[in-house]
């Protein structure tokens, strides 16, 4: 029998054992964002006609939380295992590189979805959405968590120290997330930055996910889906290539 379920279970148990840090804290952070931004901007900004700013903001916050937590799950688990040396227990097991990938990815996706659901649940008090487009919602949520979960595996494998992982997070993930339309529509940007935003894959994730809630978006949700799926395939291929070669894991 395969060792994949055990590795997946271990990764799930790992984040569940510190649920305050891995689930509750990001939900509270998202709630604070909502309170502050909606308080300041609700009366001044209306991004889409007929859509209140808070209703615009919530899907962005849910998606941002999912992205950051899916990335954190796989990357922090791997860097901790590498730094503490207990990665050896996984490496001596009869697990293929594909099983390794699927277990870490699966747990990252679950954590992303749990945090996303948590953020949505607490923001429901402020913005009780009517039935969203479930298909778009699930497609974008899964793809977003999978892309960032896979990117987290790459970062966790590549980083040799905690500060290298922090650099990856602060100089790549955070700017991509913040500059992707969580708090604004890219149509409010100058033309040049609108063009730049279209090269940011996170923009499509947030835009498409928001479409599932409010039925309006900056880009065609089908195009966003295609770009997101392409990103997932490319990052997964890179991750699998690294795992297969044993890069920074097996000497």
């Amino acid at each position, binding site marked *: 029998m395969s060792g994949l379920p055990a590795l997946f279970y*271990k990764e799930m148990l790992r984040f569940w054992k510190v649920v305050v840090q891995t689930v509750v804290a990001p939900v509270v952070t998202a709630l604070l964002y909502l309170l502050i931004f909606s308080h300041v901007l609700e009366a001044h900004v209306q991004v889409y006609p007929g859509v209140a700013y808070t209703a615009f903001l919530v899907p962005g916050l849910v998606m941002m939380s999912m992205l950051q937590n899916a990335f954190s799950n796989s990357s922090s688990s791997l860097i901790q295992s590498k730094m503490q040396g*207990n990665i050896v*227990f996984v*490496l001596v*097991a009869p697990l*293929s590189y594909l099983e390794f990938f699927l277990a870490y990815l699966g747990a990252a996706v679950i954590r992303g979805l749990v945090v996303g659901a948590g953020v949505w649940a607490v923001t429901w008090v402020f913005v009780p959405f009517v039935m969203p487009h479930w298909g778009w919602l699930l497609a974008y949520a899964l793809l977003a968590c999978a892309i960032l979960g896979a990117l987290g595996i790459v970062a966790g494998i590549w980083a040799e120290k905690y500060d290298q992982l922090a650099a990856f997070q602060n100089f790549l993930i955070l700017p991509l997330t913040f500059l992707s339309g969580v708090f604004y529509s890219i149509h409010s940007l100058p033309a040049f930055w609108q063009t730049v935003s279209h090269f940011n894959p996170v923009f499509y994730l947030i835009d498409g996910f928001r479409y599932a809630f409010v039925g309006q978006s900056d880009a065609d949700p089908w195009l966003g889906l295609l770009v997101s799926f392409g990103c997932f395939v490319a990052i997964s291929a890179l991750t699998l290539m690294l795992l297969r070669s*044993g890069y920074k894991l*097996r000497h």
Partner: protein
Amino acid sequence: MSAAIHVRDLHKRFRTTQALAGVSLDIEPGEFFGLLGPNGAGKTTLISVLAGLTRADAGEASVMGHDVVRDYRQARRALGVVPQELVYDPFFNVRETLAIQSGYFGLRHNDDWIDEIMHHLDLTPHAHKNTQALSGGMKRRLLVAQALVHKPPVIVLDEPTAGVDVDLRRSLWAFISGLNREGHTILLTTHYLEEAEALCGRIAMLKAGRIVACDTTRNLLRHTNEHCASLRLDVESLPSGWQARVQRDDDGNWRFSFGDYTELENLLADLRGAGVRVRELHLQEPDLEDVFTDIMQRA
């Protein structure tokens, strides 16, 4: 029947260091085999290649007939490795750690065996303790337990008693020896040569990535025929002809190194002839440390 461990012409280079320079070795099933060598000799690299933690540049390695690269799943199922470093996952308790490790090997319902290992390694009272809260000795036991969860026929112990107290060392060796009697093949690396001498039936010595000696422990001990006698005499000087061969140590004893016992007989006869009385006589047989030192100096 396949060798428990088969290694042929293994090479591995880390940047400027040639860690393995053509190592060939066969360990038969059921052997208690020692791998000795100074730091940096290549012992851990060899073990890492067997465990799949390191990829060799050239050569082949197999465990119970399963190639460690082509047939890695079967090779890893046949191997249990106790790593040198005291590593643990601080997120889990002892039982969770062992259950998870079993799961990696595809074993879902392994509680009976986990209970048995914990019992033998005295881990049962600590089953629900977080691994972080275990003492160093207990962490070492947990590493041994983790290596055994999938009942591997071949067990590799990489310096398992480094920094371990006497009680744990004894109980650990009693347990490992029991596993060996049950048919498990044991590969041991250690810097405690008296342990290797007492436990291992066969020993290989590595230096700079090459095997410089590989034989039964008994034959290795015969490698040097240098014996030493320590004598306490009631005189201050020796009969003529012996001054150059017998040295006096700081305690006032006379030390005589010889290859053949007739040399000792001749010395004693000359002492008796000169009227010298021997108050004490101690004979020191060569041990593995002498052999190891000698081989390492010559290699």
